[in-house]
């Protein structure tokens, strides 16, 4: 047990280091001068350009830039924002709670609605409830969040006036963005759970249970669902990363002060250190969430526990 966890921890660390390299590569190895993409050269003097280059360190050789970037990042220093000289890490940390709350809430909606509809859909295959669930699933994966967010604002803020259209204070502001983002996740989960339930229902052990006269509800919820949950759990792990990234768009729609908003503002201002910092940070969170998912298999599936 301890050995597996430590191996997983080690590979996760490797992956995080790798993503640090990647974030560096994306910004510095792409063609073009990062400084020129940040400011318009016709509006500033060459001295300003030179000082920006020095501040970013892009005037030094590449290996030196990379070395200092990694060593600083490992010490928690992701540089300073070009726009207002604010250090990147504290900026991320202040805005993190709003985003985490949103990601968690939308993940929760995705999991509950997705699993519930997916199971009902598989049990009542080809009836109206199945068709509804499949339509929900398809719409969920096909609607852009910026559009569903706008529709939610139109209906629940402007017309009905139930929830505020913007802001990040209090639980009321969380509802609409979480639903908007949750629909996407639910779409993926519904389709996956339905499919894996249908597969499990065809397994011989389900036939055996039915032959033994076990109540259908028990067969479905205790036996079939438990087996169908494993792929769903993996999916939710992957989704959490996507939902975290989805906050970039949805926080812009709902004007929430989260890291999604930080990155989209940074993108507008070409504030590359902030962009790098947020991308790297979200990679770390993604790795951590998937580590947790991996380890939770052993709770859900005794076979995993025994095989190690």
């Amino acid at each position, binding site marked *: 047990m301890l050995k597996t966890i430590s191996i997983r921890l080690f590979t996760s660390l*490797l*992956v*995080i280091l*790798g*993503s640090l*390299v990647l*974030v560096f590569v*994306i*910004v510095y190895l*792409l*063609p*073009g001068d*990062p400084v020129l*993409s940040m400011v318009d050269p016709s509006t500033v003097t060459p001295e300003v350009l030179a000082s920006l280059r020095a501040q970013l360190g892009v005037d030094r050789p590449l290996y030196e830039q990379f070395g200092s970037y990694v060593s600083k990042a490992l010490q928690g220093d992701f540089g300073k924002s070009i726009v207002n000289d604010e250090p990147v890490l504290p900026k991320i940390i202040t805005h993190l709670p709003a985003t985490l709350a949103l990601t968690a809430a939308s993940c929760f909606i995705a999991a509950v609605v997705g699993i519930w509809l997916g199971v009902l859909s598989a*049990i009542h*295959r*080809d*009836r109206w409830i199945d*068709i509804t669930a499949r339509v929900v699933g*398809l*719409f969920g*994966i*096909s*609607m*852009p*969040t*910026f*559009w569903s967010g*706008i*529709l939610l604002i*139109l209906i629940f803020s*402007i017309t009905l006036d139930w929830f505020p259209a913007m802001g990040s204070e209090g639980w009321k502001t969380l509802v609409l963005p979480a639903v908007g983002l949750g629909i996407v996740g639910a779409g993926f989960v519904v*389709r*996956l759970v339905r*499919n894996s339930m249908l597969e499990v229902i*065809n397994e011989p052990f389900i*036939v055996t249970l039915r032959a033994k006269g076990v*109540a*259908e*509800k028990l067969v479905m919820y205790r036996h079939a669902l438990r087996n169908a949950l494993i792929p769903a759990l993996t999916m939710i792990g992957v989704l959490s*990363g*996507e939902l975290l*990234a*989805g906050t*970039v*768009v949805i926080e*812009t729609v709902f004007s929430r002060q989260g890291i999604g908003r930080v*990155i*989209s503002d*940074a*993108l507008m201002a*070409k504030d*590359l250190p902030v*962009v790098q910092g*947020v*991308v790297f940070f*979200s*990679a770390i969170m*993604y*790795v951590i969430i998937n580590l947790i998912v991996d380890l939770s298999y052993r709770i859900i599936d005794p076979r995993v526990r025994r095989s190690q």
Partner: protein
Amino acid sequence: MKETAVAKTAWPRTRAWRQSAPRTAKLNVSNLLVYAAGFVVIFIVLCALMPGQIAPYSPTEMVMTDIMLPPSLTHFFGTDYYGRDVFSVVVYGSRDSLLIGLASVIIGGLLGASIGALSGFLGGIFDTIIMGFIEVLMTIPGILFALAIAAAMGPSLFNVVLAVALSAVPGYARVFRGQIISVKGRPFITAARSVGAGNLRIFFRHVLPNAWSPLLVMATIGLGTSILIGSGLSFLGLGVIKEIPDWGTLLSQGRGYLTVAWWMSTFPGLAITMLVLSVNLMGDKLRDHIDPKKSRF
């Protein structure tokens, strides 16, 4: 006791029956949906190819007396704050939205498939290194990856395509590698090798033809994702700045007028949703057709 639909009939509950019977029962509804999806896609492609024939007005024509009119028979989708006909702008905007989706799927798919194929076919240390790299790439969600690339390279149509394409590469590489490895292990490959076929011949004549079909399914579904990510980039202002905006930009422009003119951002969003929904429906159908066992996920 709650019975399933299957259990209610007098038919024997064999596996073969269970899989075939509901399939014929739902065939009509799902086929109808796929046809409808086909029509939507054809219509949007026609919009992109010959917008002049479909749009009733010019997308740049500003009529100052017709500012922000609600949807009506003369203006299906209403008019915007410049007095432009929203339907016409949406018709013209289909070109860039579709182009971004298609081009990035083709570029990303080819690049990803080549990497996956090479990695899976060669195996060994090369495979381990490439897949380690892909694993790292997978930790950065598609839209963030695309955002970072688009931001670093600056807004242009080509950069948006490249950003969306690169963000899709790891997924394609992973799937195609798995497929290549599973085909590589099948007996007919050993047979080909034993009669003296070389690596290149085995790869192009035997492995590739047997491995590409899941890639086709993935590319169809990936088209939907690419359109979504592409329009997301435009929505965030990283897209192409043009006189005729694409759907994402259009939607973002209409956002400020939500309380007074809901139609300005609702209809471009509906266009994106209909296109992606149709593409996904067709992808589902294709998946069922190619691999009935692994139907929708």
